[in-house]
C-alpha cells in the first residue's frame, strides 16, 4: 500500500468507502465527528482534527517517530484534496486513511535515510516530543511507569521488524481497536486480506518476540 497504490482513496472516497464510513463501523474515537453534507473549510478541519491526527500518528509511529512532521504532511495532503471531498463520508475515516498513508510514507523515507547515511532515523523537522502516558487501569508509581515505558519501547521495536503492511494492520487492529471492515476500508483491501495480513503479522510478531526473549535470556 502506498500513495501510488490507490490514489482515489485519498483523492476522493469511493462509494464503497462512503458506505463503510457509516456510523455503524466508525471506531469509537471517530464517532460523532461526521462532517455532514457541507464541505468543511480547511481551517475548520485543521482546528477540529489536528490533535486527533497527531494522536493517530503517535500511535502508528511509536515514541521515536516525528509525529509533528506527519501531521504537517497529512494536512498538506488534506488541503490539496479537500476540494474533492464531497462530505458524504465521515471525514475522520478519510483523515485516518490519509494519516496511515503518510505514516507509511514517512517510515519509508526514514528507512531510506537510515540506509543511505547509516545514522538511524531521518533528522526530525518537528519540535514537539511525542508523549506516551499510562492508561487509567495502570499503576502510576514511578517504577511501574518505567516498566511500562520499557514495554512500550519493546513493543514498537518488535513492530518495527514487521513489513509495513503487516505492521499497519497489526497496529490498527490490536492497538487502535479498529474492526476488520474499517481496516479494509482504510487500507483499501478486501477484508479477507486484512485477516491474512493480521495472521501473518501476529505470527511474525511472536517469532520476533521469541527470538528476542531467547537473546535476552541469561
Amino acid at each position, binding site marked *: 500500500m502506498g500513495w501510488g497504490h490507490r490514489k482515489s482513496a485519498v483523492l476522493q472516497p469511493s462509494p464503497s468507502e462512503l458506505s463503510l464510513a457509516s456510523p455503524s463501523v466508525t471506531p469509537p474515537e471517530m464517532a460523532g465527528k461526521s462532517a455532514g453534507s457541507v464541505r468543511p473549510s480547511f481551517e475548520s478541519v485543521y482546528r477540529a482534527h489536528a*490533535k486527533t491526527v497527531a*494522536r493517530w500518528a503517535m500511535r502508528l509511529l511509536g515514541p521515536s517517530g516525528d509525529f509533528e512532521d506527519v501531521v*504537517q504532511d497529512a494536512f498538506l495532503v488534506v488541503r490539496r484534496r479537500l476540494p474533492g471531498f464531497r462530505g458524504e463520508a465521515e471525514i475522520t475515516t478519510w483523515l485516518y486513511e490519509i494519516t496511515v498513508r503518510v505514516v507509511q510514507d514517512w517510515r519509508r523515507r526514514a528507512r531510506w535515510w537510515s540506509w543511505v547515511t547509516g545514522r538511524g532515523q531521518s533528522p526530525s523537522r518537528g519540535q514537539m516530543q511525542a508523549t506516551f502516558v499510562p492508561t487509567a487501569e495502570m499503576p502510576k508509581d514511578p517504577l511501574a511507569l518505567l516498566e511500562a515505558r520499557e514495554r512500550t519501547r519493546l513493543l514498537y521495536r518488535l513492530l518495527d521488524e514487521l513489513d509495513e503492511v503487516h505492521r499497519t494492520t497489526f497496529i490498527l487492529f490490536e492497538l487502535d481497536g479498529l474492526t476488520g471492515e474499517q481496516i479494509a476500508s482504510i487500507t483499501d483491501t478486501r477484508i479477507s486480506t486484512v485477516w491474512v495480513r493480521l495472521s501473518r503479522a501476529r505470527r511474525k510478531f511472536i517469532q520476533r*518476540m521469541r527470538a528476542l526473549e531467547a537473546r535476552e535470556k541469561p
Partner: protein
Amino acid sequence: MRQHPEDPILRWRDRPPGGEAAEDRAAALIRGSLVPAEPEELHLPRFEQRSRRWSRSALLPRLAFTALFLVVGVATVMAARRAGWLDRILPVAYPRPEPAPLRTHRPRHPTRVPAAAPAAVTDATPAEANETVAPPPGPTLAVPAAEIQLPRRKTRASRRTAFIDSPKPAAPALSDEIRALDQAIGLLRRDREADAALSTLDAYLARYPRGVLNREARLARVDALLMLQRLDEAQSALDTLPLDTHRRETELQVIRGELRARSDCARAEEDYSAVLARSLDAALVERALYGRGACRAKRGDGTGAAEDLQRYLERFPNGAHAAWARQWLEGAGQSLIKGG
C-alpha cells in the same frame, strides 16, 4: 476493549490474563504499554509557517536528487549497454545491429599483379599480332587487398537508426553469431590483422556452416585473402560465392574477372560483361571495360577488343590504361587496314 461482533478474531489484549503462551505474553506486553497522550495544541499559523518553509526548502534538494538519479540511471544503462550486459540480460530486447559488410575502395596505389597480357597487333590478323608487334604493358589486376578502406566509424545517428531499424529481435544464437563475426571484422578493419581475421572467419564458418551471416563471413574472408595476396584462394572463394548486384559485390565480380583473366579469359569476360551490363559506377566500369578489351585482344578478338578500348578512351581519356589502349588501337588499326 471488547471484540467487535463482526470480527471473527479475538484481539490479544482481550485474552484472559495470566496465560503462559506466547500470545498471552504478547497480550501482556500490549496491555502494559503506554498509550499516546493528548498532544499539545497544534496551531494553524505554525502549520502555515512550516508549510511555506517546507515548500521552499524541499524544492531544491528534490530537484537535485531527481537530476542526480536520472544522470546516474542513464549512465548506468549506457555503461551496461556498452559493456554488453544488456545483451546478456535482455538478448531479445536489445539486439545489436548487424555489422556492415566490408567496403573496399579503389586504392590510390593499388597492389598490381600482372595478369593476362593482351594480344599484340599483327599486320595480318589480330590472332597473329603477338608475333609482330611488341606487346604493350599488360593489363594489371588492381587488387584492393592491401588498401581495403574501412568504412568510417558509424555516427551516433546511424547507430541509433541501425538499432531502431532492426527488423526483428535477434535470437540469442544470432547474437553469438554477430559477436563472432564482429570480432573477425574488427581484426580485419581496425587491426589489419588479416591472418588472425582469416583464422577467426574460418572458425566462424566451421561453427556456423549455415549461419544467418554466412554470406557476410565469406565476403569478409575474400577480403582477408586478398589482403594476404593469396590470390588463387581468393579466386576459389569467389568462384563458389554467388554474387549479388550490390556495389560491393559488383566490385568483387570485377576482382573475380581480374583474377580469372590470369588463366581463363573466357570466364573473365563473362564477369566483365555482367558488370558492364548493370553497373553505372565509373571506377568499376573503367576496370571492366579495360579488362574485357584486354581479354578479347588476348583471345584474338581484335574487333571486340578495339570496340572496348575505343569506348574506354572515349569515356576515360585520362584513365590509368589510356596510354596502353591508344598504343594498342594504333597497332590494331594498322593491322586491320592492312588486313582489309
